[in-house]
């Protein structure tokens, strides 16, 4: 079999061609939408380009770190994350009513961000280590690894991030083989305890949920974001109003429209057809990620690839669901679309790991 140039690139750079193509396509769309949403602000566009460049660099670096090295980073990273979370609980800075930030002198830092990758890495490392002797107690330990940071973040309070991190941990346990009966049992128990959870929720969290159920109850306050973004999306129609032609966007009616609400701009200007294509691109990335997982030679690779894929789509679902008015407003950016360096770098870091898993399997086997 003649070795294609594609194969050579893959061997030399450890980049996965399909994933790279999809990522570049999405980033291209993102650039166009950010340009439109920012009113073609040169500062925003160049800032976005710099972020993209940086994040792509991180992705390339990560792709070249072999999985077995990566798996070793899990435990220290996780330990550091949990320590920092405890630090936050004790010494953290309060902003907007919740204690999420750690002041490092030069910059403020949210340790919960660290856990988004540290928790899956830790769990994947743990399940790889015990791959051959997996028993119920391992799931109990894994569950404990999940619950500790989850609770710490929950009491900051930051329900959104806690749930996202909880989800990533759960995905990993799920792919590691968490028995179905535990899953269903847990789900039933969770549903039954919803009223208790409601009682434990903070006022602003309850309000967000209520606003979601009836945005018109507070059209100028909490409901404003949802009302304006659904108007934008709905007015887009089948084919959209055209790039830079969305009035909800151009006339400032959509809040946070380069960041969390960028999908409203996209929906207004590119319509339902655009939305189908966009969701299609995300599904393609997830599909590629699951294929990589299926082909991964190690347990660590399999678990990481599958978890990162599902995680990505969870972000997509939560963001688009919130902007479309079916989920409460939580501060989750749309992966690969929203403006913002940290989120983009974290995401491409994850995709870099995916590529590493994809391209290091022959190497590992040999």
């Amino acid at each position: 079999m003649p070795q294609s140039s594609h194969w050579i690139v893959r061997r030399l750079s450890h980049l996965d061609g399909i994933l790279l193509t999809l990522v570049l396509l999405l980033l291209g769309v993102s650039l166009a939408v950010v340009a439109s949403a920012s009113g073609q602000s040169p500062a925003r566009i160049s800032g976005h380009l710099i972020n993209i460049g940086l994040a792509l660099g991180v992705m390339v670096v990560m792709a070249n770190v072999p999985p077995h090295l990566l798996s070793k980073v899990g435990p220290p990273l996780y330990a550091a994350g949990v320590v920092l979370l405890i630090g936050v609980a004790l010494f953290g800075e309060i902003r907007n009513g919740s204690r999420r930030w750690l002041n490092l002198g030069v910059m403020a830092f949210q340790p919960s961000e660290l856990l988004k990758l540290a928790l899956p890495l830790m769990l994947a490392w743990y399940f790889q280590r015990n791959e051959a002797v997996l028993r119920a107690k391992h799931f109990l330990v894994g569950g404990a690894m999940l619950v500790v940071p989850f609770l710490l973040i929950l009491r900051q309070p930051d329900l959104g991030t806690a749930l996202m991190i909880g989800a990533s941990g759960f995905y990993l346990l799920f792919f590691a083989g968490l028995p179905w009966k535990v899953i269903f049992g847990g789900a039933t128990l969770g549903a039954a305890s919803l009223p208790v959870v409601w009682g434990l929720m903070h006022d602003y969290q309850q309000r967000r949920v209520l606003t979601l159920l009836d945005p018109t109850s507070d059209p100028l306050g909490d409901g404003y974001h949802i009302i304006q973004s659904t108007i934008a999306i709905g007015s887009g129609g089948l084919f959209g109003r055209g790039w830079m032609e969305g009035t909800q966007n151009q006339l400032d009616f959509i809040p946070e429209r380069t960041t969390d609400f960028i999908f409203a701009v996209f929906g207004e200007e590119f319509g339902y057809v655009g939305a189908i294509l966009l969701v299609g691109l995300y599904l393609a990335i997830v599909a590629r990620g699951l294929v990589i997982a299926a082909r991964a030679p190690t347990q660590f690779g399999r678990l990481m690839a599958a978890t990162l894929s599902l995680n990505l789509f969870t972000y997509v679902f939560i963001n688009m669901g919130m902007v479309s008015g079916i989920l409460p407003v939580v501060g989750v950016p749309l992966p690969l679309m929203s403006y913002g360096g940290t989120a983009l770098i974290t995401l491409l870091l994850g995709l870099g790991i995916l590529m590493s898993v994809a391209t290091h399997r022959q190497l590992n086997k040999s």
Partner: protein
Amino acid sequence: MRLTPLKNLDRELARFHGRLKAGAAFVALLAATLLAREFYLQVVQHEHYIQRAESNRISLVPTAPNRGLILDRNDQILAENYSAYTLEVIRVQTHDLEATLAEVGKLIEITPGQLRRFRRLLTESHEFETVPLKSKLSDEEVAILAANRYRLPGIEVKARLFRNYQAGPGMAHVVGFIGRINDRDLKRLRESGREQNYKGSVHIGKTGLEQSYETLLHGRTGFDQMETDASGRAVRMLSRIPPVPGKDLRLHLDLGLQAVAEHAFGDFLGGLVALDPNTGGVLALVSRPGFDPNLFIDGVDPDTWKELNESAERPMVNRALRGIYPPGSTIKPFMALAGLELGVRKPTDSIADPGYFSLPNSRHQFRDWKRGGHGSVDLRKSIAQSCDIYYYRLAVDMGIDRMHDYLAKFGLGERSGIDLEGESPGLLPSRDWKQRRWKKAWYPGETVIAGIGQGYHLTTPLQLATATAMLANGGKRIEPRLVQAVRDPLSHVWQLQPTVARGQVAITPAHLAAVREGMMDVMRPGGTASAAAAGAPYTIAGKTGTAQVVGIKQGARYDESRVARQHRDHALFIAYAPAEDPKIAVAVMVENGGHGGSTAAPIARAVFDYYLTGKRPGNMKLEANDATE
């Protein structure tokens, strides 16, 4: 030490692949949910959301039209517009209203009166409405406020159109005034579907012509369709419908004549209506006292309002239109005509007047105003000397029902239909009316006093003038009109308003001539108003009257000099001139004026002199116009 059994790796891998499929199914489910939601928003509900996006984006900014002018018959301005800067407050935008007011007070002078008026308006307005604090700012004040605007949230300086009534208090009852649109006005506008047309308007006609011609004067509001951003800032104009200014009104009324009439009243209060008997045009309409209509435009301050409303002189009541008084002897020409037309009397019939009249089988004496009576009295003399006994008998011979029906033909007891609102219908009594109103039978004695315009009968000066005009024009009943012509603001063409006739009373010429002769005799030596006609270069036909203010007991006599002024009788006078070819008909009512011949008739004379010969009263300065200060 126990060995942990190794798991079957292939089976584990197969299970992982199963989990991958479950994960993929989960993702597909999420994706389907999202796309279903977007389908609902973007396809199913697209129309709804595109409309909401449009209404988000497009705002209609109203442009108020210029209000029409009001001019007298010689195009003298009675009501006009001017633009001025106003200091306005939007309460909801001020952080601390009191602090803001105090701050403004430091910058420019705010009088306590302005502050009181402002507070009264505040109580009547919604907190997001603009409420004027001070109008007609000087250039300096505008500059000071503009420089300090940044620290005075909720304070605005706006260029507004104002109304100026330069003809003064004398015209207030005719022209009326505009005032700020209140909740009642809004409700009315909404009910009549005119609310949209007042989107940019602050004022609306409240009284007088400003009220009755509101629709014509206001014009049509224009709209600028603006594209606005989320903060409400206009980005660009999409389309523009320019406002259509209101129509100008030209009156029949002569401002000079009005001033002469006003002046002729001197210190007396009362009302006067002068009509052109051929067109129904109102040449003058006086109600004394007047008031300054300019006070009301931006809300009157509470003290002034109280003063105007609680004054015993009741300056806000239009006496010409709403003041109701017994017609007294001014009814006699109409009674005489009724007697002739109904065949109850002939012009030559004479009666003997002993000074009193009694009904058969009654000892009650109805007296003549003249002790001892007028001797032998025929129709002409009965009018000239205002003989009561003649009319007592005539009334009894005619009966109340026939009397009512005939007098009704002259519009007595009915609204004249003038183009002003709030006219009182007065009251023309009848047997039916008494039964309906009081559930009581009619007494014969009531017929007797009805014959001389006393008892239940009530008229307005306007009604008397309209009836007098019918004597002058031979029975044509024409609705009085203040407005003669209306000018379209775009074409500048004056369009004459039609004369509205309400029919013609057929009168035998000989009968009418006899009554007219009697009315001319009133002004001749021996007549009750002869002094008022002395030296007139034209012939006047008139009739005096007095309306009782306090009842006089049987057997007592009324002595004018011995009662306090506010208890004196009201003096009445109706007349037209020139008698041969009437050009003007007048009804005058002087409150507590005593005798019609001595106080009311000279006022009519002054009006005739000015209208027919251009002569002003000797003691009235040329161009004197109580109106302009």
